[in-house]
């Protein structure tokens, strides 16, 4: 059967600890959507909760705060991987609980 667990763990390690241009603390904060200052906190929160509402201005604000395009790229990837990971883990936990009861 298909199994993404090893690929998922490798992806998380890669985006958090692999070579990158954004400092590791910033990538981790984006992944957790926690501990970021404005305007990056607004951008990351949108990526996590309603990415369809992200605007050109959100990216321009991150850029004006001093981040390069590659750093913005990395921060956004970390935020998206973090949010999707929390959803995935919630699903797996619910499956464990449901399968035990069943």
């Amino acid at each position: 059967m298909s199994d993404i667990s090893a690929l998922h763990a490798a992806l998380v390690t890669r985006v958090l600890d692999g070579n990158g241009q954004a400092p590791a603390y910033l990538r981790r904060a984006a992944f957790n959507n926690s501990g970021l200052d404005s305007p990056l906190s607004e951008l990351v929160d949108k990526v996590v909760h309603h990415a369809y509402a992200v605007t050109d201005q959100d990216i321009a604000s991150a850029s004006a705060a001093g981040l390069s395009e590659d750093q913005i790229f990395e921060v956004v990837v970390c935020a998206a991987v973090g949010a999707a990971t929390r959803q995935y883990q919630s699903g797996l936990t619910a499956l464990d609980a449901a399968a035990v009861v069943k």
Partner: protein
Amino acid sequence: MRLSILERGHSIRNKALLGLIRLVSRHPVVDAVKLALYRPDFYPAGGLTQEAMRGPSEWTVADRELMAAFVSKVNRTEFCVLAHTATSSMAYDDADKVSAALADLDSSPVEEPLRSTLKMLGKLTEEGDLEAADVRSALEAGASPQQVKDALAVAFAFNLTDRLADTFGFSVADRAAIQAGAKYLLARGYG
């Protein structure tokens, strides 16, 4: 796209590959491919998506493509909705069934356990988490625990991809490019 590096910042090797894709497909390269070829050392999501979408599963490829379209619809990610609606429609050879499922799952001809599994994925995507009772509904409708796990993997891949598509501002491809992309995804996958 909102970051110029995703349009023009690729390595020389991948710039050449993008040119070749343009030449062979005779369509502009869709933004999903430009993202996949930008710094795959940092963001190597292709292998995971391939495993979720094409790895061994009790779900068919068509079912998983419908899940991808369904999750993307809840996320309001137009690029991915169109791409995976086309791919699922082609794989089922039934566009009506796919559009009915996306328009109103309850009145659509989608059978169990796929219907309850889609509902479960919809809730996970909309609300961000699931309770045991949500999973139990899918299990009681006939999904195996492994099928639920496989569906959660599809949801992971698209809850990630949709966020990137929307944040980076993927342009919606034209109809011919979407159809060509669907054919490619069925023939070659995501790897």
